[in-house]
């Protein structure tokens, strides 16, 4: 008999905000405790930990906590653990954990993503000579992913006739959802005029196209289904994942400048499930920059190539009561850059109908979660409602 598909048995999150003045480990412990409470598991039940990208000492605030540090602080005993940066982005931890519980390496795996990017300050010029891929970008004052992503956005606008109004529609939509989310960082109303008159960062991306750096930690517990009886909630099945890597692993050599790595990730994910885009009830799609969400909509096949701009400008598509409710917590654009796992957290909260005032009132059993952009991306379908029985 084939092994059951892996499941998510609980979620947790620390305080999320600007300059909280707390250590990464402190925030992570809060998120782990929240997830244990949420699931009904105890720390003794946890026998695995996964994270991406592992502790990143060279990038202050980007990933301040290591697995060994968390393990030691919380007195864990682990059968399996894995952390590191050379995976398909922020969902690497969840995908690795899913593989671990499926192959019997662990029963309950804490996946965490902690950021203190709001508190951290990086001085670009304090670093030494450039090595690796950064040497091809930074000598040309292209310091930020905002620049690298803007090059894709400009090309997308050029090929498909999209305009800033489409990105603005997504920014306004996300802010509307954030207004219903008490943990969102920016909750005040945002209008399209506010968006269009905001300062340009790197054309065509303006201030409101960029997500908001945050301090916070998010935890997802991935479990072996056979180990979840008696827990607080019906577990959510990880129906399928995809993280195929093809073409060039490069910001500037990728053959198509109007898609990113998510196109191959989503394609491989769909090959692993009988579900189709029409079966999906809602979507939580990465928005480190607004244009990336448009790329995800097309990668998943929720609209055709070049159609995502029109798709997001029609609110009946993406509103909470729309055909495909999108980034229901406000996304990273308004809720804060919890960096990937925040989308998984929100998808689970919606499926469990624990999303408070922003709860989707229509069907919300099957979620598409797409996380990453640029060179790294992974796609996932989450399915509630006890699908295997």
């Amino acid at each position, binding site marked *: 008999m084939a092994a059951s598909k892996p499941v998510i048995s609980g979620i947790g999150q620390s305080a999320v905000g600007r300059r909280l003045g707390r250590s990464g480990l402190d925030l992570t412990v809060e998120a782990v405790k929240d997830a244990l409470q949420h699931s009904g598991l105890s720390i003794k039940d946890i026998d695995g930990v996964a994270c991406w990208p592992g502790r990143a000492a060279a990038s202050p605030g980007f990933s301040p906590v290591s697995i060994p540090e968390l393990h030691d602080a919380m007195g864990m005993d682990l059968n399996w653990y894995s952390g590191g940066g050379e995976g398909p982005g922020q969902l690497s931890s969840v995908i690795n954990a899913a593989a671990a519980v499926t192959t019997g390496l662990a029963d309950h795996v804490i996946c965490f993503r902690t950021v203190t990017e709001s508190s951290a300050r990086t001085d670009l010029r304090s670093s030494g*000579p450039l090595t690796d891929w950064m040497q091809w970008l930074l000598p*040309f*004052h*292209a310091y930020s992913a905002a620049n690298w992503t*803007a*090059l894709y956005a400009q090309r997308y606008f050029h090929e498909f006739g999209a305009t800033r109004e489409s990105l603005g529609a997504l920014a306004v939509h996300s802010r509307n959802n954030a207004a219903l989310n008490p943990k969102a960082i920016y909750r005040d109303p945002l209008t399209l005029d506010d968006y269009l008159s905001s300062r340009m960062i790197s054309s065509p*991306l303006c201030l409101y196209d960029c997500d908001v750096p945050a301090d916070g930690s998010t935890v997802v517990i991935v479990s072996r289904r056979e180990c979840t009886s008696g827990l607080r909630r019906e577990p959510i099945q990880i129906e399928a994942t995809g993280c195929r890597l093809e073409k060039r692993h490069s910001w*500037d050599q990728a053959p198509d400048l109007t898609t990113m790595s998510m196109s191959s990730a989503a394609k491989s994910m769909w090959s692993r499930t009988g579900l189709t885009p029409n079966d999906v009830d809602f979507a939580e799609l990465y928005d480190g920059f607004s244009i990336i969400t448009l790329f995800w909509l097309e990668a998943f096949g929720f609209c055709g190539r070049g159609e995502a701009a029109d798709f997001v400008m029609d609110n009946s598509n993406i509103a909470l009561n729309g055909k495909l409710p999108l980034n229901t917590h406000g996304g990273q654009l308004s809720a804060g850059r919890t960096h990937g796992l925040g989308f998984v957290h929100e998808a689970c909260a919606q499926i469990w109908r624990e999303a408070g005032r922003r709860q989707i009132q229509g069907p919300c059993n099957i979620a598409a979660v797409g996380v990453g952009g640029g060179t790294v991306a992974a796609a996932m379908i989450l399915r509630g409602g006890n699908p295997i029985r």
Partner: protein
Amino acid sequence: MRVKMNDSSNRMLPQLDDTNRFFWQSGKDGKLRLLRCECCAHYVHPPAPVCSNCLSTQLSPQIVSGKGRVASFTVNHHPWNPAVETPYVIALVELDEQENLRLTTNLVDCDPESVRIGDRVSVRFTQCGDIYLPLFALADTD
């Protein structure tokens, strides 16, 4: 006084090694060079010890035309580096020699608001010590 795009100062620079040295020093004679496979003639960029097209390890730097077109661009306004005058143009230049063979670069001596995808451009170098960064200018301004 903040520096302009055609100025060589205040740029972060690559660490030279045996793989990349030919590229970053190529502009010393005003020529742009890229690594090319001696077996299948594929250009390999960034430089690598093997051809990604045919897996040959026989590769050598070859002079290229230094001409291409703007595949995309962005006008950067944010003062990431306060020493650098904004706005400035970051571009992806696709070289004439091969489809999707691109350099991330700056377009210099141009009105940032006048740049368009598809514009013809040609290389010019800015010297930073022993490193020559390939920048580009609109071809009709040569």
